[in-house]
């Protein structure tokens, strides 16, 4: 919808592509026949009921889980090859309240936490690289608006504050692809709106492709370029208006599903197959007939 101006148009036009991908966890096929096209520079959401394997798809994109069948290409190579060009925000509840580490340390980990060795205290005084690193961390903290609390212990921050810092951590190395797993989960409504707006702004600022897993599309609906609905037997993708319709979703899940439009523009999906409300096992929620 808004490709960045300087983007090379040819083979790199897709950040993530999958053809006939399938994945098995513990010998059981979670999903198969998954086709993905995430164009570079777009804001794409992966939707589907709880337990269908959205997080597993993310793990496959990151190269943490091998495919059982099919092909998957991430940033022009096999998954896992380009991990330094991907910013990742895992699904989580929150940091341990007793964790005595500052937000700025968490963000800094995203910059060079994977480098061997030990950071020297006071290195900024005599090393240009250490100064630039500190400046980059401050810059990205400002970008997400976390400056006021980045130097407090991260365990004491609210869910929304932690989420902003984690987005900063994912962004600090200027990734080409930002992968977010349910970033709005566990946030209250005002924070959901604010964080969704932040992600949309990051996506619209240009160089980064955003791939986001969500189970509620409404907070991000107005920003999305594309949605991908995933089910055990395959995927449907397109613009929100094309995909989130009663006919398409009923066909995908093979069960009657109704999409209602509220007067304020929100979508309500009724009859969507949901995994059991209590997440006893996140990997059994294959849509029931």
């Amino acid at each position, binding site marked *: 919808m808004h490709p960045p101006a300087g983007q090379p148009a040819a083979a790199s036009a897709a950040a993530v592509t999958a053809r006939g991908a399938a994945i098995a966890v513990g010998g059981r096929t979670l999903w198969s026949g998954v086709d993905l096209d995430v164009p570079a520079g777009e804001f794409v959401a992966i939707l589907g009921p709880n337990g269908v394997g959205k997080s597993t798809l993310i793990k496959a994109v*990151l190269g*943490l889980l091998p495919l059982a069948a099919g092909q998957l290409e991430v940033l022009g190579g096999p998954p*896992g090859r380009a*991990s*330094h060009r*991907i910013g*990742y*925000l*895992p699904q*989580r509840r929150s*940091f*341990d309240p007793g*964790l*005595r*580490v*500052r937000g700025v*340390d*968490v963000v800094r*980990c*995203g910059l*060079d*936490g*994977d*480098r*061997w*060795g*030990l*950071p020297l*205290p006071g290195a900024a005084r005599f090393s240009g690289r250490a100064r630039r690193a500190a400046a980059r961390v401050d810059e990205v903290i400002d970008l997400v608006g976390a400056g*006021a*609390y980045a*130097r*407090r*212990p991260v365990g004491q921050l609210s869910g929304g504050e932690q989420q902003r810092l*984690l987005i900063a*951590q*994912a962004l600090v190395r200027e990734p080409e692809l930002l992968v977010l797993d349910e970033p709005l989960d566990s946030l209250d409504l005002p924070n959901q709106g604010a964080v969704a707006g932040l992600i949309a702004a990051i996506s619209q600022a240009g160089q980064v492709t955003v791939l986001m897993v969500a189970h509620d599309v409404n907070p991000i609906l107005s920003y999305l370029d594309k949605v991908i609905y995933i089910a055990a037997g395959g995927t449907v993708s397109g613009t929100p208006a094309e995909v989130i319709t009663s006919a398409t979703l009923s066909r995908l899940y093979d069960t009657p599903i109704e999409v209602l439009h509220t007067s304020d523009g929100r979508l309500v999906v009724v009859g969507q197959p949901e995994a059991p409300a209590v997440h006893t096992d996140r990997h059994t929620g294959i849509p029931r007939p």
Partner: protein
Amino acid sequence: MTPGAAGLLTGPGTSLTWNIGSDISQVLAFHFMVNAVRAGTIIAVAAGVIGWFMILRRQSFAGHTLAVVAFPGASGAILLGLPAAAGYFGFCIAAALLIAAAPRSQADTGFSAESAVIGTVQAFALACGFLFVSLYKGFLDGITGLLFGSFLGITDSQVLTLLAAAAAALSVLAVTGRPLFFASTDPDVAAARGVPVRALSVVFLVLLGVAAAEVSQITGALLVFALLVMPAAAAQQLTARPALSLPLTVIIALAVTWLGLGVSYFSVYPVGFFVTTFGFAAYVLAVAARQAADRLGRRPRPAKIAVSA
């Protein structure tokens, strides 16, 4: 305290004066005390740094079990006529590898999946230690030393062994420190970035085994936490800045060890008690200082205030 120490207390040069300088020179007049201070210093530095990571990783239970394993290690080695240090290091490292082999939950949040394996190892280790002590008749005096610590009779070669093990452990941490910090605070993201989270976890458990084996030799198997947990926990209360709390941990560990050794030299009570008590005092003071700082108003950088307090 063993009969040897009781004898010393009646000798000349063991009276506490108001002159700290002469007190210190009194303590260091005996070679066994010099060795005790050397050993204590090495152990405090290694245990402080490794304990700091242990607190960060919430692996205190694993640390405690590795410390308990030191007891059958040492008593088994003595039973077989081997040097106690061989038993300490051998058993602690073997137990660390056993815990590392425990299956990890898929979610990988926290380390709770380990706890059943750790508890099993701990109970069996204590039982083995009890068996070894029973098999070695007439060894019962030594149990107190193994469980609650003793600083008497540390030889030059034991000090060298402690130094070599501590230097090896700290060198490994110097190389793996930053990725280990990342993997400890944020395992999911670290794994996605290509940090070998699982391998680092195994490496760290072995380091923890080395630290537990070292500390056991001065505080005893049951009081290892005096140096492994208390200094790090106190320092992390005082500041949330890693670059500050890590050196602070070492300083607290050194202070606690030196004070404990010094006071127990002039006292009839065992060193393990004093080291632990000073460690406990440091922790209580740190918590009080932080709560006072928090109450003084939610300033943007409460950690700084607490440090200067």
